[in-house]
Structure formats: structure tokens, C-alpha cells
């Protein structure tokens, strides 16, 4: 930042005061943190099950569009029916996009990193097209849909986005599932040792489908909450990078579902305040990205190297002469 001519302390001060210093700034941070938390949670479920789900972006965006469409195109329903339907649309489409990658892995053995990257490209292009054509707001030149009806808008609690609280609850729920239920134990066992899971009678295929489907559903929900609670319509430019920040957050949280909560608030705060940092201290938004990358690198390098070594792919890369 010094090199760039800005004063670092001013920048950090601005980051803190805008991200966390005022009620409105805090609300903005939590609003930013919500889809981040859910996409982090989606990546976490994958990591715990031995999968690297980097398709969260595509899952999230398809959920965001589906929820946005349900939010403006369905008329005449009361909020307690319309809002859940719109959210379910988001969940279903996210789950479908995740499940496709899971099915390709389970039944065709194609590595999930490859399929999720491919599916990301397809979904992002398709969604952009739909938002600019079939589902475009009438008379609009931007690629965006009509505004979500009030009956499908997530209400705020004391000015804070209520989706945030739901995301926290969900993170805790996922943590509890891994901690205390047989389903969580199944996924965890597959993630730690596929061969032992097979020996123990756990279906590895089924676990892959579940982890990718549920991960996709949660990412889709993240997109839906972003559309229905924060932005108010589907507009592709607002979702850029959310899914990829989710990977950062999952790694920050060390694949612990509770770990995504502070991780998402931190990154949400930095992202939310990046515009203010630019105004107050003249820090370019790219510098904010750089800070995030540095955080990620410092915190996750040991974890990543351990994870790489413990998975089969990693073992092939890192093993040398030994038997």
C-alpha cells in the first residue's frame, strides 16, 4: 500500500470502521458474509468427504438465477409461501449442478476438479445468456432480471440481513451432523480412507453423490439468499467470485463447518469495505485481493500440503522412490 502511495494505517482504519465500526457497515459485512459462508460450507462438506468441489461458483449462480426467476415471475402468493418456494428453487438448481459433477465422479470416475471447472464455465455462460435474453428485465440493456417481488424478499431483522443468522444456524447444523450422526460419520470416513470405508460397508459412490448434491444445495441457497435478501434481483456481476472466496473460507476454517463462520465474516468485511478503502485511503481494489491472497497463503499452506499428501492424488504427486 505504501508503494502505491496510500497510508497503510488509514487503509486498515477505513477497513475496520466501514466493515465493523457502524451498524450499517456491520449489516453490510454480514450481508456479504452470508453467501460466502454458505459457499464455504459447500466446499467444506466436499473436503471432509475427500472431494475438492471447486464448482461452488456455478452451483451458487444457478441457485441465484433460479431463485431470482421464482422471485419475480411467480405472482400473487403470500410471503410465507412465495419466499420458501423461491429459496427451494435456488436449492434445487444448486443441488442439480453439484450432483451432475458427483454423478460423473461416482459412475464414470472423472475427477471432480475437472468436471466442476467445466460445469462452472458452462453454467456461468448459460446464466449470463439467460439474464441478458430470456429472463432480462423488459426495456433494460444490462444483463439482469426484473426486481424480486416484495413477497419473495427476505426481511431484515433490526436492519441486519436475516439470511446471515440462517447461514450460521446451518453451519452449526452441518457441524453437528459430522459430529454426531451416522451420515456424517459415513462422509467423514470416505474422506479419510476410501478403502476402509468400503471395508466398513459404506458406499463410496453414494457418499460422493450426497456430498456433491448437498454441497450444491447449500451453495444454491447461498445464491438464493444473495438474490432475495441483498441484491433484490439477479444480476450476474454481483456474484462474481463468491464461490471462489468460498474455497478460501473453507481452507481458512480448516474444513471445519464452524470455522467458516469467522472466516466468512472476515472476508465479507474486507470485501465490503474495499470500496471505502479506495475512497478514504486510495487503496486500489487489487490490493485488497492481494491482502486476501496473503491471508489465504499464510493460513492454509500447512493445511493444504497436509491435505494433498493425505489424498490419493496427492500421494501420487508427492511420493518418490519408496515402496
Amino acid at each position: 500500500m505504501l508503494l502505491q502511495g496510500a497510508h497503510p494505517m488509514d487503509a486498515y482504519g477505513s477497513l475496520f470502521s466501514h466493515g465493523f465500526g457502524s451498524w450499517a457497515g456491520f449489516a453490510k459485512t454480514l450481508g456479504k458474509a452470508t453467501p460466502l459462508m454458505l459457499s464455504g460450507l459447500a466446499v467444506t462438506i466436499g473436503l471432509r468427504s475427500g472431494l475438492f468441489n471447486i464448482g461452488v461458483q456455478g452451483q451458487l449462480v444457478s441457485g441465484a438465477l433460479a431463485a431470482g426467476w421464482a422471485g419475480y415471475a411467480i405472482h400473487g402468493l403470500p410471503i410465507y409461501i412465495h419466499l420458501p418456494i423461491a429459496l427451494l428453487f435456488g436449492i434445487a438448481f444448486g443441488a442439480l449442478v453439484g450432483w451432475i459433477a458427483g454423478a460423473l465422479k461416482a459412475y464414470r470416475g472423472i475427477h471432480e476438479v475437472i468436471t466442476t471447472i467445466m460445469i462452472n464455465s458452462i453454467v456461468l455462460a448459460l446464466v449470463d445468456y439467460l439474464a441478458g435474453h430470456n429472463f432480462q428485465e423488459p426495456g433494460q440493456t444490462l444483463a439482469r432480471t426484473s426486481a424480486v417481488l416484495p413477497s419473495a424478499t427476505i426481511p431484515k431483522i433490526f436492519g441486519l440481513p436475516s439470511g446471515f443468522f440462517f447461514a450460521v444456524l446451518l453451519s452449526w447444523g452441518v457441524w453437528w451432523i459430522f459430529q454426531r450422526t451416522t451420515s456424517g460419520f459415513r462422509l467423514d470416513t470416505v474422506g479419510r480412507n476410501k478403502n476402509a470405508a468400503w471395508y466398513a460397508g459404506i458406499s463410496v459412490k453414494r457418499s460422493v453423490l450426497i456430498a456433491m448434491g448437498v454441497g450444491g444445495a447449500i451453495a444454491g441457497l447461498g445464491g438464493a439468499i444473495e438474490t432475495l435478501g441483498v441484491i433484490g434481483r439477479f444480476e450476474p456481476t454481483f456474484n462474481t467470485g463468491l464461490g471462489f472466496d468460498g474455497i478460501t473460507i473453507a481452507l481458512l476454517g480448516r474444513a471445519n463447518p464452524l470455522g467458516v463462520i469467522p472466516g466468512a465474516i472476515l472476508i465479507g468485511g474486507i470485501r465490503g469495505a474495499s470500496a471505502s478503502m479506495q475512497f478514504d485511503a486510495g487503496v486500489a481494489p487489487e490490493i485488497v485481493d492481494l491482502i486476501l491472497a496473503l491471508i489465504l497463503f499464510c493460513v492454509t499452506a500447512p493445511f493444504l500440503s497436509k491435505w494433498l499428501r493425505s489424498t490419493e492424488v496427492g500421494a501420487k504427486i508427492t511420493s518418490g522412490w519408496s515402496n
Partner: protein
Amino acid sequence: MSALLEITNVTKTFPGVVANENISISVSAGEIVALLGENGAGKSTLVKSVFGMVRPDSGEIRIKGELISPGDTSGAIARGVGMVHQHFQLVPVMTVTENIILGDEPKRGIFLNMKAARAEVLALSEKYGLEVDPDAFVEDLAVGTQQRIEILKALRKDVDLLILDEPTAVLTPQETDELLQVMRNLAASGVGVLFITHKLREVMAVADRVVVLRNGRVAGSTSPKETDEEGLAQLMVGRNVVLQVEKGDAKPEAATLVIRELHVNDDRKHLAVSGLNLEVRAGEIVGVAGVEGNGQRELVEAICGMRPRISGEVLVSGEATPDMHPHKVHSMGVSHIPEDREKHGLVSSYSIEDNLVLNQFDREPFAKSWIRNIGALEDNATRLVEEFDIRTPSIKTTASALSGGNKQKVVVARELSQDTRVVVAAQPTRGVDVGSIEFIHNQLIAARDAGAAVLLVSAELDEILSLADRVAVMFGGKIVAILDAKEAERGLVGRLMAGLSA
């Protein structure tokens, strides 16, 4: 004729194990020497010392009279040593030619000279009579052909001594015969061959001399002319260490485990178990004796539902067990102590309490519907740690922190603490300390006395002879003989294991 390779008093210890102790071996030019021994006898360690991949603690290795410094792989290569590893070091997406020239490519200017390379490969292949298609992609080739490429790769560097580490472990019988012919041709052209194996037939067929290793020592040195497969088998397993096990007479009842006409493939889709029939009665231990690689692993995995059966059936108390459904087979009362505890038996990053319920985590009392009962897990772990003498600081300790013997006790405790009708124990004491071996043996006998049908598969003939009430000898994917413990004399079993008729 002076020796090509001379190994004198080589000793190598790894923490806790003596891999090689005072080993002396020599190989002359044009001679084929077989290094025979069970798994863990120290064969691989010895040849890796010659090739410079392992640094011996003491002793000398001379090639053509020249002392080679320990741990000097390039020195060994420069003196004409070539080695074909058990696991191939080929690039599957590259062609045969590209693989063979890899690391020392013919060039023209800064460019690869593929024409010259191809010609060189063809010449090489002609010279040694090893037929290969220089333009084929390695991934499309059969394992036997891939091995031929490995051999050519080694021979390209003017090799005087060729070391083959278990070259036939991955080959079909036909491919094996071809390889043996290749070895004869090489020896005829003056190359010294040192090859590792634990298959007696190959030794008899091709070797000029045989050196048998047992527990890191030379157990004997002989030649196929002076001995037969039985003599070799006896040298391999030894007769001195007999583990004495206290046990009463078996009181067998009706057959609990019945295997009928079972056919199973190995990982490479070759028939490993071919029409196997076997019955194990309640209250007896049937030991499966056999040289490793005769289908024992595939048999065990097929019984337990972990490997697809091609045909045949496995019955438990008269009920057919499902194919490829380990969970159901297990819940029919089949306990399985797997051969590889690190791979199948344990999740090493899980706590001991989780590992103790690994394959029953979703059953009462460890779970009610889908919620796990942590209290029941803890009670179970506390009880089993005490009962099975698992030495651990706490039940929350991860399995990876335990010693091999204690890890195995966790597996044994889990499998034998259940209500079990059939116990399938594969190599239950491999890599386990002596105290734990005795304990595990007694637990297997206790399971038998409690009325379980116990199928014991072991590469240790001593273990079979001291534990089993009946000995089933497995050879070539079939049970070739079933002997009563009293008539199972070591020499007889050894002959049968080698595929000879009694």
C-alpha cells in the same frame, strides 16, 4: 571366471528390524542367480543396496572387482548394473521409443532425433530378442510387454548385471514363461542376472544357483540340480521357529461357512480363484496354507463381499451371502480381520473409539436411527481396551499413534467382540510383535471355542500348523488338499504348496 558381483557380509538395519545380516552372495557373468524368500525376508533391501538405493550399515559390494561406494546409484549404473523395479517406471502416455530413450535422448542439434531413437530401439529389440512395437503407446500394452520395455530400458546402457525385483509378480503364467526365456537368452549373451522371487517353479526352471533368504539371513545356497521344490520350500519357511500354542481339541459341529465353485478375478482381471470349494465348521480353525499370490487375497475379499465374484456362492449357516455388499455380509455374522490393516482395517486419523466401531457405527447401541450414541462408543472402547490389552494413553488417541501390534489389536478387538459366526482372519499377525502374536492367537482360539467357524489365511506356515485344526492347501486358485492337523507334516504341506502331488 571372476565374479561379476560380489556381496560380502552386508548388514542393514532399519529401526527395530534387521533387514540384512551378514549376507554374502556372488554372481558371475552369464549366470542366473535366484534370490528366494518369503515377504519381508530382506530380498528387496539387498538388491537395493547393490543398486545404491539403500545404504548398507556394513559390508562390501564389488562389481567386477571394483568396490562401489554405498548409496551411489549413478556409480552402480556406470559400472553396468541395470535394475527393473517391481513397480514400473514408465510414462503411460508416451510411446515405447520415447520411454526407452527417456533421460538419454539421441539429439540432432537441440532437437530430438526420433528417427535415430526409433532405429536404436529396433536394433536393441533385435539384439536381445525382445519384441516390441516402437510406436505403440505404453498405456495400451499388456503388463508383460511393459516389463519388456523396462528391461530394454535397462539393457540400453550396456548392462553386465541385470537385477529384476519380483519380475513375475504381475505376470500371467504365459508372460512368465516368456520372461524366463528372455532371462536365459540374456545369460547366454554373457549378462549376469540376479532375480528376486518367491515362486519355486521359476527358480527350478531358470536359475543356475539359488540363494534362500530368511529373516534377513542366508538360509541356504543351492542349485536346482541339487534340490527340488520341496527342499526349497523348507529352506524358505525354515523349521526352527515353531510357535507353540496351547489349545484344546476342536469340537466341530455343522459347517457354518460353505464355499461352492467360487471363481474370482484379481485386479488385472485374471482368474485368481478358479472353482474353489471349502467348508469351515463351527468350532474349528481351518488354515489356508499357500505360497502368496495363489489367490488367497482374492478368496478372502470375495467371501467378505469386497471383490466381485464371477460365479459360485458363499453360504453362511445355509444362507447365501450377497456379492459386493460388505455391509450385509458383515451383518450376517462374518467378521473380517483384513490383510492390510492400514488400508482397510483402520482409519488412522480416527480415534480408537471410532475405529472400534468402524463397521458397526450405525447399529444399536452405537446409534439410534441416525444419531450416534457417543456414550455407548466410549463404554465399548473402554471395555475393549481393557479386555484386549490395547496399550494406549486414551480411547480418544488416534490410531496412527499406536504401534503395529496395538493397531492390530484394535482390529482384532473390533472383529472378535461382535456376535460372530464366521471369522475370516487374513495374515492376522503380520508385522506384529511377538507378545501381540501370542495374544491374537489365543483370541482366535477363544473365538473357535465360542463356536465360530474360523478361516485363517497366513503366509506363515508355522502359524497355520500351530493354530489350524485342518489345513487347506491352496495352489493356483484351488484348494488342492485338505489335511487333518495331525497329518499336516511340514514337508508334505510344503510339497503341496509347491503344486506337487503328495
